[in-house]
């Protein structure tokens, strides 16, 4: 419960198996020993620090909001960092919607009931959507169009619209939304990185969009800052600079396979349907059109990022020993 002091004393993190959740938990436990850290997830992670108080909540359950509210109230939580989002797209559309949209709704209701001071939510610049009519730099105020074929993105777009409406109705809770672009680094692993790790990287024939990356350290720093200090609002977390997709792939020493858009989408359709966890066909639109976000607001708030887009990429490829010299 809100105590009125500026420094939060209890922080709850949901989604301990996601990269941001897990790493943020470790950082908070190590750097803020005076702070009580609560972990909330569906299952207890295998490796969990003893100082973290763990609570088991399944966000897809209909009564999750009541249970969450009780936990937040009992633990006197000041700040909730909500990171429980899938990093891999799932073919189970219903479950995806239950966890990402309705689960976030549960979190919001629980925060309102427990009068939590601050809510920090993970989001992505992918929600702006790759569109031919995007400006070169998307600001935080740009509408979220998402992508009609990528349901994982659509669910999060719905979540953000629910969240922005919720934030208006609950002015006592500061809401911080951090939209990170494709996160790279030695430790992070998701579908984007799997795409870039293919021996031959498919690209859309005739297109070479500008892309941007952000390093995992910069993202974690921003989350830590947002959790510990008051900075309500929406921020893009991106590295400085952009680079053409082909340049990035060539820097990694990969071969580029250029395929016509229709063939590529057809090719991507079957693996995505056969539950291998591959990105949906809509993913390739992200490699076709521009969806670069303007990070100026985030840089002002969280400080200059340590890595530029290109440096983040180089850090990633050198950590994975991708570069082959030919």
């Amino acid at each position, binding site marked *: 419960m809100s105590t009125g002091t500026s420094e939060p004393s209890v922080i709850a993190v949901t989604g301990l198996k996601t990269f941001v959740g897990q790493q943020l938990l470790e950082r908070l436990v190590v750097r803020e020993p005076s702070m009580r850290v609560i972990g909330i997830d569906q299952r207890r992670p295998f490796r969990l620090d003893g100082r973290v108080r763990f609570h088991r909540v399944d966000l897809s359950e209909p009564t999750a909001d009541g249970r969450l509210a009780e936990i937040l109230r009992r633990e006197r939580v000041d700040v909730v960092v909500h990171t429980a989002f899938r990093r891999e797209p799932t073919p189970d559309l219903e479950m995806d919607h239950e966890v990402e949209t309705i689960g976030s709704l549960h979190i919001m209701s629980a925060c309102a009931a427990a009068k939590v001071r601050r809510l920090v939510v993970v989001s992505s610049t992918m929600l702006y959507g790759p569109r031919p*009519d995007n400006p*070169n730099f998307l600001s935080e105020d740009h509408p979220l169009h998402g992508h009609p074929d990528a349901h994982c993105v659509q669910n999060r777009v719905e979540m953000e619209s629910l969240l922005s409406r919720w934030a208006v109705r609950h002015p006592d809770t500061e809401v911080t939304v951090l939209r990170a672009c494709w996160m790279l680094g030695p430790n992070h692993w998701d579908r984007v990185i799997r795409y870039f790790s293919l021996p031959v990287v498919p690209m859309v024939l005739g297109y070479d969009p500008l892309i941007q990356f952000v390093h995992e350290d910069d993202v974690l720093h921003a989350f830590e800052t947002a959790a510990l200090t008051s900075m309500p609002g929406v921020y893009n977390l991106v590295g400085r600079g952009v680079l*053409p997709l*082909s340049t990035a792939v060539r820097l990694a020493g990969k071969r580029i396979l250029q395929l016509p858009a229709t063939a590529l989408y057809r090719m991507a359709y079957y693996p995505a349907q056969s539950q291998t966890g591959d990105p949906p066909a809509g993913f390739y639109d992200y490699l076709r059109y521009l969806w670069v976000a303007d990070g100026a607001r985030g840089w002002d708030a969280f400080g200059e990022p340590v890595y530029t887009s290109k440096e983040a990429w180089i850090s990633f490829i050198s950590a994975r020993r991708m570069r082959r010299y030919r």
Partner: protein
Amino acid sequence: MDPTSKGPLCGDPELGDSEFGDLVEVREALEGLRREIRSRFLSESREAAPWQDVDWQALFGKLRRRMNTFGMSERSGEVDEFGLDEVVLKRALPMLDLLYDRYWRVELSGIEHLPPRGPCLLVANRSGILPYDGMMFAHGLQRRLPELGRARFLIADWLITLPFVQPYLARLGGVRACRENADRLLRHGRSVIAFPEGVKGAAKVFRDRYRLKRFGRGGVVRTALENRVPLVPVGIVGAEEAHPILFKIHGPARSLGLPFLPVTPTFPLFGLFGALPLPSKWVIHIGEPLSLEHLEPDAVDDELLISRLTEELRSRIQSLLDVGLSDRESVWG
């Protein structure tokens, strides 16, 4: 006829018959030598055929690398935030110079109207399918007024997302035409060349040439007002004859991602070769800037004022074009 009288090559004219016998011998010897050379040469060529020396592995490696970097080998990989690649531009410079000096023989007039430094919003008439006019104008400004900084030209959406065209246009300095991009460029101190006619301008048929279409919804004036930059009218005379569109086809164009398929005297007739622009003579007239300094920043919300200013800008460009057209003697200069 005495064979010895033919010339000095046949030897001394005083030589006798016996000497001729020697000549026969020499000829035979020469024949033998030639045969031997030929056989030796042929045998040598049989031994070392040109394709036997080739290092196939190296060639395949080269070919593979070439294919991997197909269409991308000319790029440095370092681009600015709007995708301009200095290396691509530098390599394209001779081509741009050729087009500028030899092909269209572009002339810039009225360059003294431009502000000596600092950004400005240049507004010109659009013509042709590919943005040659923007590219040439930006190139001319770069050459004549390097201290102005490289002006970036705006391109309509359908062109900037066209496959194969899109990466190159961005590398050469094209930017998608929208308010956000123009604002950002002007804020960062770069001049912007805008074509507010948009697709309507590019789709102008030949009989409508140099008659300006409607100017969007006042976006250029708003942008100039908000960023407090001079608004410079520009009339490009000659570019509208480079791609004389006789009529437009809409049916097959949709599958190609184009708004329409132009029919020029040469284009579908001679295939892609006919898509080359014609070498008309271009004169780029830069007019006096429209004065916006006396206006308050909140004039942006005055719709009537914006539309009046837009119309004034349009009429200024139209008069620049009319004067330019009456001054020139021939399309080909």
